[in-house]
């Protein structure tokens, strides 16, 4: 099981060329491993279904996959699922935009100006050392348990990874390229547009990726606070009534949205970093 998972990892990653590709009776090993990598989760799903149907696992502990699917279908049909999903996405998006904007602006400012670096960086790094979830009780005291508290928590989670990576990306621009810009006579706007932004882009996108993961974590926690809408509410509500099928569904929805968010950043990377050897063929491998 562990070994197979490891194989799946190799064949699925963009390091797939490491996997053996020798031909054996028409099917390459790479293709075979790829099949195996998909077969394992499918098999687990089947076993789970069988175990739940035969009563080996009580439905209160873990409902059958088919039961979760039916629940998803019902909630989708009456629209509840989308209402809650929409509310959750709006929270995440609002918090993300606020946090990312502040992080990007601060990162650019500190990246460019040694004075701003002296002024802000140490303080920001100190605050960054706090795990943002440890702020939760304080956030509740400040903002109560309403929407603002939730959005604040998401924004807080997003701000630091975006700030750090933007700042580092700008500060790590090769000074030799800046010298070239001077020789060629690029004006300030052109220097930012042609050298600094594209040079910092890999770092900024890394920051965005971390930020999305953090935002999602913050949202899950924030939505366990008193709430009447959102995926988190669905889960809390279902807990009250021991509806494990709904709980499992919310977990899966969180997972799907996480994957979608990560994939969208990968697409951005493929679009903006096609010049970079590490990202050159990413567009093909985006899952």
């Amino acid at each position, binding site marked *: 099981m562990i070994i197979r998972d490891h194989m799946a990892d190799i064949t699925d990653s963009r390091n797939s060329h490491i996997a053996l590709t020798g031909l054996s009776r028409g099917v390459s090993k790479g293709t075979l491993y790829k099949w195996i990598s998909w077969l394992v989760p499918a098999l687990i799903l089947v076993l789970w279904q069988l175990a739940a149907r035969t009563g080996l696992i009580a439905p209160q502990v873990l409902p059958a996959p088919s039961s979760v699917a039916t629940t998803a279908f019902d909630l989708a049909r009456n629209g509840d699922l989308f209402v809650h999903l929409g509310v959750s996405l709006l929270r995440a998006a609002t918090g993300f935009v606020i946090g990312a904007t502040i992080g990007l602006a601060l990162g650019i400012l500190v990246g460019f100006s040694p004075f701003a670096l002296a002024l802000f960086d140490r303080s920001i790094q100190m605050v960054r050392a706090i795990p943002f979830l440890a702020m939760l009780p304080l956030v509740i005291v400040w903002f109560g348990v309403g929407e603002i508290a939730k959005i604040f928590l998401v924004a807080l989670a997003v701000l630091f990874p975006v700030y750090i990576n933007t700042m580092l990306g700008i500060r790590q621009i090769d000074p030799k390229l800046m010298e070239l810009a001077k020789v060629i*006579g690029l004006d300030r706007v052109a220097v930012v547009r042609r050298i600094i932004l594209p040079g910092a882009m890999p770092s900024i996108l890394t920051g965005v990726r971390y930020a999305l993961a953090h935002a999602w974590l913050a949202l899950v926690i924030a939505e366990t606070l008193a709430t009447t809408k959102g995926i988190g509410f669905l889960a809390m509500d279902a807990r009250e009534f021991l509806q494990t099928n709904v709980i499992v569904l919310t977990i899966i929805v969180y997972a799907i949205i996480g994957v979608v968010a990560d994939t969208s950043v990968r697409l951005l990377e493929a679009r903006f970093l096609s010049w970079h050897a590490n990202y050159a063929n990413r567009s093909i491998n985006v899952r």
Partner: protein
Amino acid sequence: MSVDLVVPRQTHSPALAGERPAPSSLAVSVRGLQRRYGSRVVIDALDLEIRAGEFVALLGESGCGKTTLLRALAGLDLPDAGQIRAPERPSVVFQEHRLLPWATLWENVALGHETTVGRAGAARALAEVGLAGREDDWPRNLSGGQAQRVALARGLVRDPALLLLDEPFAALDALTRIKMHGLVKELVARHQPGVLLVTHDVDEALALADRILVMRSGRIAVSFPPKNHTPHALRSILLEELGVQSH
């Protein structure tokens, strides 16, 4: 084509745009240049003239101030005293290619001159250095020699009056270096910029230059055209000037 520059505290003055120097005019003229780092004098009362179309090689031991001189001409280093008459924007080819990894080859060649040079002009410059059809390629797909050829194309695409070469072949392997010598010679003959090549390679200077200068303790110690000597004799003279005993 050039404007007097009186230091201290001033960078290159704007040159009259678009004007090419007449064949007999000077690409660069330096008088009494001085540059100090703290109490150490790196360039001391240095005079230098390079005619348009002339290829000058500047030899010297490490730390003799030859790169500092080139950087002063490029406007990257401010002298402490003296006078420099140079085009406002000489082209510089550095030891490293300094291509933007996120820009295609043609964007690199046309950098800063997208409207005047354009894709077509960049493509012509790339063809000149033997990289026709590679306009949309990325720098990461180039070998060291190819990357340096793109840097050369970028330097020449605007037909500069002065081309500054800062040990541009030092990082290349011996065979590639010889090929690059031929290419540079050909391109300089066609575009006719004044050239200052900073190098520590005596054979490179002999292969390329119309005039060879040896810099020592912040001054031009020796200056002569290689034509008046046989290559072998010249090599011995130069090596001796550089403090190497030849046999």
